[in-house]
């Protein structure tokens, strides 16, 4: 039993929520928020706050948070900007533990919003109220049936997202869900007037339901602290960051979005590597990495074995592997002999190992077992298509992946035909990608992660 809980605990595990600006009008955000909370299955006490009183979703509304007789853990503010400061003052008076302000019109709109944000920041300084936002889309915790967001709800799982874009929460939910994985906690961080990316990283690092921590960021508000926490958190679970605003034009776009100022981007490449953070270059990488990191584990070297049942994909995979910095070495003579004992004479066993087309699904497993004795660190199996034996093939790959010590990745080139099989492989922790290149981009990051975990730099601190 924890005696000291993190200050963000009431944000993600509230027992009571007040929705300030709750509404029965379907056009209002206050309506959507109530609906999401109720549909999400929130089990705690819910208090709509509306000056007009009455009922919202058949729950009696209070005219003000101060009129609620019970303690409130979390206040969700869906009110106009000029009502934020007075409402936050009421929250402070009521000793509310956490608050989420979705309202826009602060730093992101320029000077006038700047002043409003500074005023809000000052008000919160020295208090114990932890406020998310402003200018955010809310947050959710799938493990406590809490959907306090205005975005799509993802299936339940173990990837946690912190996003400086509300809409990306929905895109992420959709993408990750489509691949058969799920989200633990998703947070739209907004303008970070109080809760910063460092605070959330600190919380998620110790959160048992989170196995992969992912960030979409446009700037760092507490950069040094973020990196310092990451250094220690990365030893527990992988951290993926997609940091946007890498170009001058991109930075200009961010200023209007969340009013953030960005520094020199390439310095972050270095800083992230020092902290063990894996940086996604593109949105595709971001999804692919979250998926791969959820299913696989760090790779402790760059010697790779490529197994294929057709020439072309093997060649493509080999080129891609070399570009990603992998070493492709021939297997030992003994392994070659063992492979030749059952593979046809026209097969090639020099790495890539091309078994040539076969319906003998046992060949995949047997080959992998033989090759796993080589001093190699990971395997990529490429499969173009196998309409007749796909289930058996999936079984054999799952078995193979359990038997060999090295992480195994699969590039199955006809994903459209095999949706169910892909899900099945994902369920059994075998990562599958539609092309070798995409698999190898992720594997390269796992090699980087492995190198960092084993490297001597962890004995010295930075930042």
């Amino acid at each position, binding site marked *: 039993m924890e005696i000291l809980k993190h200050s963000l605990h009431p944000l993600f595990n509230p027992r009571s929520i007040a929705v300030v600006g709750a509404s029965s009008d379907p056009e209002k955000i206050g309506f959507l928020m109530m609906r999401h909370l109720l549909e999400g299955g929130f089990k705690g006490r819910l208090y709509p706050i509306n000056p007009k009183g009455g009922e919202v979703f058949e729950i009696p509304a209070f005219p003000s948070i101060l009129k609620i007789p019970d303690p409130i853990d979390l206040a969700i503010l869906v009110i106009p900007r000029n009502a934020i400061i007075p409402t936050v003052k009421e929250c402070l008076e009521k000793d509310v533990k956490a608050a989420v302000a979705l309202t826009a019109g602060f730093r992101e709109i320029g000077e006038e919003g700047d002043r409003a944000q500074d005023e809000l920041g000052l008000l919160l300084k020295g208090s114990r109220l932890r406020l998310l936002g402003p200018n955010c889309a809310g947050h959710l915790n799938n493990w406590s049936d809490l959907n306090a967001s205005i975005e799509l709800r993802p299936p339940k799982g173990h990837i946690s997202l912190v996003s400086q874009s509300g809409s990306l929460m929905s895109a992420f939910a959709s993408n990750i869900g489509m691949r058969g994985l799920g989200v633990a906690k998703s947070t739209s961080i907004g303008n970070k007037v109080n809760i910063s990316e460092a605070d959330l990283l600190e919380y998620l690092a110790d959160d048992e339901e989170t196995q992969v921590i992912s960030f979409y960021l446009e700037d760092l508000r507490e950069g040094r602290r973020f990196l310092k926490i990451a250094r220690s958190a990365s030893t527990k679970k992988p951290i993926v960051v997609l940091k946007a605003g890498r170009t001058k034009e991109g930075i200009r776009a961010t200023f209007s979005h969340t009013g953030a100022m960005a520094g020199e981007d390439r310095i972050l490449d*270095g*800083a992230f590597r020092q902290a063990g953070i894996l940086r996604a270059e593109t949105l595709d990488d971001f999804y692919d990495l979250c998926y791969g990191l959820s299913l696989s584990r760090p790779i402790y070297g760059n010697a790779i074995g490529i197994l294929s049942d057709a020439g072309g994909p093997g060649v493509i995979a080999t080129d891609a592997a070399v570009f990603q910095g992998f070493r492709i070495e021939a297997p030992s003579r003994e392994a070659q002999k063992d492979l030749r004992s059952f593979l046809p004479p026209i097969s090639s066993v020099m790495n890539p190992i091309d078994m040539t087309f076969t319906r003998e699904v046992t060949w995949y497993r047997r080959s992998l077992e033989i090759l796993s004795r080589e001093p190699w660190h990971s395997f990529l199996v490429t499969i173009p298509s196998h309409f007749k034996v796909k289930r058996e093939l999936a079984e054999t790959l799952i078995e193979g992946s359990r038997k060999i010590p090295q992480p195994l990745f699969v590039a199955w080139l006809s994903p459209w035909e095999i949706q169910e099989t892909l899900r099945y492989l994902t369920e059994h922790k075998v990562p599958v990608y539609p092309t070798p290149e995409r698999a190898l981009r992720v594997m390269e990051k796992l090699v980087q992660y492995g190198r960092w975990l084993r490297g001597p730099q962890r004995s010295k601190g930075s930042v």
Partner: protein
Amino acid sequence: MHPIIQQAFNGKRDLLEPECWEVLKSYDLPTPSYRWVLSSTQAKESALSLEFPMILKVVSPDIIHKTDVGGIIMGLRNPDEVEAGYKELERIIQKKRPESRWEGAILVKQLPKGREVILGKFEDPQLGPALMLGIGGIFTEILGDVVFRLLPLTSFDAQEMVSDLKFRSVLQGTRGEGPVDIEALYQAIFAFGRLIEENPVIKECDLNPIFLYEKGLYVVDARMSILR
């Protein structure tokens, strides 16, 4: 803090090149042997204790880009040429930058060309001081192949920086030239990191170029500005 840097800080001025070299030397960053000379006669005498060919470089707090004003004279093959070279330098500076403060010249051995790298200090407004590494010439200037690490640096960081360079194969030797002394480079990066860390009053610092050889390296040119 290094006493020379302390002095410069107190005097609200930047370092002169020979002062940079003294600081680098104390951090075990290899610099070529040099003499700081203040007259053509002194130059000629000092030439006897160094190796030919030699270079004379003007020392002046007001002249940053020496090559732009012809403030570097190369290929001096004997003491007479050194003496004449010094006088030539005086003439050039008098003509091109008569108003500059003239503090003599550095007489230094002309080093054979090595593979060039650049090391510099970069200050990030939020993250603080960082080191920048690049391969000299077009790789940095046109292709933008530079790598950063925040301070303090570990020796692992120094090694990883080099392998992060996109064009690191250039360091492995091309066109008949052998690979360079990578160990020496790692050590230089690490030492430079310590130098910057221990002297927080340094505003900007560039070691450009550094010549890398099959064995060892030399810092050929160095600049250091101090916070006011």
